[in-house]
C-alpha cells in the first residue's frame, strides 16, 4: 500500500500517490472530493545560466518523513477538508526525472490548489533534503532555507504564497 508521505530512492509515482490520497480522503467512495491537484517537480536542465547534468539528492530520511507529516497536519489546520500526500526521491536523478510529487484533494478546487502549493513551499523551507547540482564543469551543494519548523514567519510566508 502506498504511504501518504515517503522519502525514498524509488522513482516518484504520482499516480500511485494520487490513488493513495484519494483513498484516504474518501475511503467509502462517497464522492465528496471534486478536486484533485497534483504537482510534480522535475529536474531542470538549466540553473543560474549553467547547464545542469544531474541532481544528487540526499535526506535525513526519518526526520524528512516526520517533517512531511508535520506539513500534512499544518495543511489540515488551514484547509480542514483537504487531504495531501507527498513523496520525495533521493539519489542521483537525471534531467527530466521527477524529484517530488505532491497531491492535494478537497471538495472544491480552491482548497486543493492552495493546499498543494502550500505543501511544496513548506517542503522547501523545513524538510531536511539537499541537492547537489552536477553541472558542466563541476558540482555544488545548493543551500536554501535554514530549517526551523517552529518559525512563524516562514509558516506565514508559505501560507501567503499558497494564496490562503
Amino acid at each position: 500500500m502506498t504511504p501518504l508521505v515517503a522519502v525514498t530512492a524509488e522513482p516518484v509515482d504520482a499516480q500511485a500517490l494520487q490513488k493513495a490520497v484519494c483513498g484516504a480522503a474518501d475511503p467509502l467512495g462517497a464522492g465528496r472530493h471534486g478536486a484533485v491537484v497534483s504537482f510534480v517537480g522535475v529536474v531542470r536542465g538549466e540553473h543560474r545560466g549553467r547547464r545542469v547534468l544531474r541532481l544528487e539528492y540526499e535526506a535525513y530520511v526519518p526526520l524528512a518523513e516526520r517533517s512531511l507529516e508535520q506539513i500534512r497536519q499544518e495543511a489540515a489546520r488551514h484547509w480542514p477538508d483537504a487531504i495531501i500526500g507527498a513523496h520525495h526521491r533521493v539519489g542521483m536523478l537525471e534531467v527530466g526525472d521527477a524529484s517530488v510529487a505532491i497531491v492535494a484533494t478537497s471538495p472544491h478546487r480552491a482548497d486543493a490548489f492552495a493546499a498543494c502549493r502550500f505543501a511544496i513551499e513548506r517542503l522547501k523551507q523545513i524538510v531536511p533534503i539537499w541537492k547537489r547540482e552536477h553541472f558542466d564543469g563541476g558540482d555544488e551543494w545548493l543551500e536554501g532555507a535554514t530549517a526551523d519548523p517552529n518559525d512563524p514567519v516562514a509558516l506565514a510566508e508559505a501560507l501567503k504564497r499558497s494564496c490562503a
Partner: protein
Amino acid sequence: MRVKIRVFARLRDIVGTPTLVCSVPPGATIKTVWEGLVADHPALADYERSISCAHNAAFARMTTPVAEGDEVAFLPPVSGG
C-alpha cells in the same frame, strides 16, 4: 558518554564521513557536540549561524541536553524540491 553524530550534504563533505561517534562530558548539550566537531573541522565554523540540529531524529535546539547513545544531527540549509 558517547553520542552518535550525523552530518549531511556539504557538512558531510567537510567532515569526510556521514556518521561519527564522539565523547562528551556529563551535562553536555548539542552545542557541546557541535563545538567538539568544529574543533576537529574548523571549516564548519562558517555554518554556525545557518545550521539546524536534530536530537534522535526530531528537530531540536543547541541547548538540548544529550545522553549516552543519543543521535545528534547537524543540518545545513535545506534545498529539497
